Every structure is written in C-alpha cells, then in structure tokens.
C-alpha cells in the first residue's frame, strides 16, 4: 500500500488501483456524512481532484493518487458514508482505477514516510 501526502491510500493489484482515505484522515475529519463519488469511466491524472468527503466539521477534497480511468466506485458509501470511519482500508474504499501511468506510484510515499508525515 502506498500513500499520497494528501492522505489518500492506494493499493495496486496488476493494473487496478483501489483508492481510499487513511485512518489518520478519517480520524481528523470526524463523522463522515457524505461522499461525492466520481463517475465510472472518468479519467483522472495523478493528483487531480476526484471527489469530496464531507464530515460534520468540514468538507475535504479528494485527490487521485495515480492517473487512470475509474472502473468502479463504492456505491455502499451513498447509503453508509460511515464505512469510511469504521473501516477506512477495507469496506470504506472509495474508487478503483485502471492505471494509465504505472510510474505514478514512484511519486507516492510508503508507510514509514507516511507515518513520519502525520507525526511530523
């Protein structure tokens, strides 16, 4: 699993990337009440905005950690946005992308660096 400095995680399996927000991000946001999901088929470049996540405290923009085309979105989040709080790395995933530029992953950070970022 890799991380963006904007607190998204990405898990890469073959040419498919699954994207969500980190435990740290959901903890700082507080109770998530709404997730604006991207449309399936839409293409994003690395660090393009792809949606927003709304909590009782604020609304936060989501950035795509890698370039690619959306193949699937987590429709469960429409009815149960709290999945992001309950299970940020599992059932709280947000979208899946077909990766268009595998080199993007090199620009992301690993778990040790992410840990340092949130502690820093």
């Amino acid at each position, binding site marked *: 699993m890799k991380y963006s400095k904007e607190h998204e995680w990405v898990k890469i399996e073959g040419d498919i990337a699954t994207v969500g927000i980190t435990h740290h991000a959901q903890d700082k946001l507080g109770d998530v009440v709404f997730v604006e999901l991207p449309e399936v088929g839409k293409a994003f470049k690395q660090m393009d905005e792809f949606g927003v996540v*709304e909590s*009782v*405290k*604020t*609304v936060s923009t989501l950035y795509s950690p890698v370039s690619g085309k959306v193949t699937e979105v987590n429709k469960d989040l429409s009815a149960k946005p709290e999945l992001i709080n309950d299970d940020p790395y599992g059932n709280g995933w947000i979208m899946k992308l077909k990766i268009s530029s595998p080199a993007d992953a090199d620009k992301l950070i690993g778990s040790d660096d992410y840990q340092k970022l949130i502690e820093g």
Partner: protein
Amino acid sequence: MDYIPNTDKDRQKMLSAIKAPSIDALFSDIPKKALLKGALRLPSPLSEPELKKELRSLSEKNTANGHRVSFLGGGSYNHFIPSVVRHLAGRSEFYTSYTPYQAELSQGMLQAIYEYQTMICNLTGMDVANASMYDGATAAAEAASLACRHTGRRNVYVSEALHPEYRTVIKTYGRFAGWNIEEVSPDSSMKDPACFIFAQPDFFGRIEENAATFSDVVHSKGGLSIATVDPISLGLLAPPGDYGADVVVGEGAALGGAPSFGGPGLGLFACKKAFLRLMPGRLSGATVDDKGRRGFVMTLQTREQHIRRDRATSNICTNEALNALTATIYLSALGKAGLKKVAELCLQKANYAKELIKKLPGFSLPHSAPAFKEFVVSMPFSAKKANEALLGKGIVGGLDLSLFYPERKNQMLLCVTELIAKADIDRLVKALGEVK
C-alpha cells in the same frame, strides 16, 4: 472625546511592527487635495429639544410611504403587514441577536428557520429551501452558479423579461466566474445551456402561461430551469415545481417587510433534493437528540466560506434570519386562505385598473398576457410627465420603463396591491386622463 482604548505607546509599537513612521503615513496614498484640512464644519451643539425639532423639520421634507397612495412596484411592493408581524419579530431576543455562532444553543431560532424553509418549500413545490439569502437578485445569481456547478457549463441564459437589476447582478457574478450570459426571449435557441432563468410573473407583471415549455426546452438541452417568483403570487399561481423548475428563487421582502428604500431584501432559494449539496448557504434541519427528543441543527455550513474558504459553494456566508422570521410570522398570520385572498385582491384590483386605463384616449396596453399585480401602459406622453402630474395630485405613479428600456418611451409599469382601494384606482384613472 474618542473611545480608542490603545495608548500612544501601543500605537508606536504597532507602527514599528509594520514599519510605518506615523499614522499619517498610512494615508499617504490619498491625494493631498482630497484630505480634510482642519476640523469638520459642523453646526454648534444643540440641546435635546432643539435637536429633536431640527430632526423633525428635516424628516418633514420627506413624504413617508403610506401617506400617499402609491402605484410604484417594480420589485419592491407595498403589502399590508399585520401588526402581529412587527410585534413578534421586534422582540429583543430576535431583533438584537446576531448570527448564532453556537447555532444549536439557539433552538428557537433554528426552529423558526426550519418552519420558514418548510413554508418556502410548500409555496414553491421544491424539496429543500435554504435559510435565506440577501435578496432576490443575489439568489438568482446563486441559482445560476448552482446550475453551472451541476452541468459543468458556463452558458447562462436569462429572460429579457427578468428584472433588469437582477440581470445586472447576475452579470456581476458572472464576470469573474467566466459565464457567458445571454439575454434572450424564451423561444430563441440555446446552446449548451447551464440554465434558463425566467420570472413568473415577469418584470412587466405578465403571468407566463408557457412556463412549462420553458422548462421542457432547457431540460431537453441538459440545462436547469430556474424560476424567480413573487411569493405573494404563489397564493394563486401554481408552484414552480409544477411547471418543471429545478431551482426557485425570489424576493421575499413582500412577506411582511416594508419597502423602505427598496430593502432590506430576503432572498428566497429553494431547489430539488438532487441539488442539495450544490445549494449555497446553510439550512436548519430537524433531528433527535440522544434521548430521542426533537431538536434542530444548523447543517451544510461545512460548504460555506468560513470553513471551505476558496472552495466554498458561494461567497455568501450568512442568511437573513430576522427577515426570514418576519416572513414566517407573516405567512403564519395569513395562513393559506389569507395568502390566497391577498393574491386574489392584487389580481382583481390590478386588472380593474388595467381595463379602465386602457379605455383612456391615447392609452394602450402593449402586452396582452394576463396581469398579476403589475401591468404596462403606453401613454400619449412620457412617464416622467405623467408622474409629475400625478404627484401634484398626491398620487405616486408607476415606474418609468424608459429608465431600463430606452425603446419603451412613454411606457409606465403600474402596480396595484391589496392596499389600494377602488376609489384610489378611480382617482388614478381620472388624474391620468387629465394630464395635459
């Protein structure tokens, strides 16, 4: 004597922090000749009785609204305000309170806003209404902004019969938002519209019978249908939800507010549920607390400017709570039957006036559509001349349309509300017939 609490030493410290040599240096950008030299030339001090006398003589130079019969409308209207409205809205707990920062502490205010939203939804046939905006014009511009966000488009089509000042405000909003604003007649062709904004009744007082067609046309091109309404007319006319509007906005000042210098306004804003999260402003929501008791919460504030900064849905970060409360009390006092009665009286009296004026020699009606409470008359002389003559007889005439539409020479927009008596209308008609 002034009441500035900081000392010379404080001031020196502040000046040195910003590296300014003196307070005067802060004003160095102002041209010297524009600066005041010496003291203000004011009259000598007066005792309280003298001052009151002075102020009274100044105020007597004005004619207060209501002292003369007035046929002036054009966006700001004289309607009857039941005494209970000002009595309740003027209570200090409402009248002196500022925006509730710890909103949930003010359950009464939140409940009042919730009731207001419910009434606006009922009147407009929309699913959600916000807690209100500044005025009808800014609400219309915010509706265009919502449509651009929703469609990802920039082409804002505006009816030529929308209030000219609303169109100016929309242009101001659009100038830096990159909108292409076109003023069109509803049947002209639209290309990739974000929305079509029209008025019902329109600026000329006409009841638009083809409103459903406007909605169908803009929908078929993927844009939103935005109606601006006179809330009083909704006592009689179909709610815009019935003719396909996606967003309904309007000036709500007529709901219990007096037309003092044209304000303060009350921006009505309601839309279909699909646009809830694109809607500007905040709203009050009903919920239950941890013991299951009903309560109210301020919601959707998270998308406002004080939290989302440059990514906020809108630059308006407040509502007009006191005016919304006034509207709520007004509508509660009138009830459904009362609002319908007010609307009926407006319609009947306006049409009585219209029929009589039409028969005056040299007068005609440029529009054939049915009128709600306003109508346009074409006269054998200028509106300016007519209004001067009317004023001489203690009557405030209509709006000179050549101010907004130079081609509408000799045309006047007259407004007749429920406050106008039949005798007043007869007096107006007689006076117009006597203008030389």
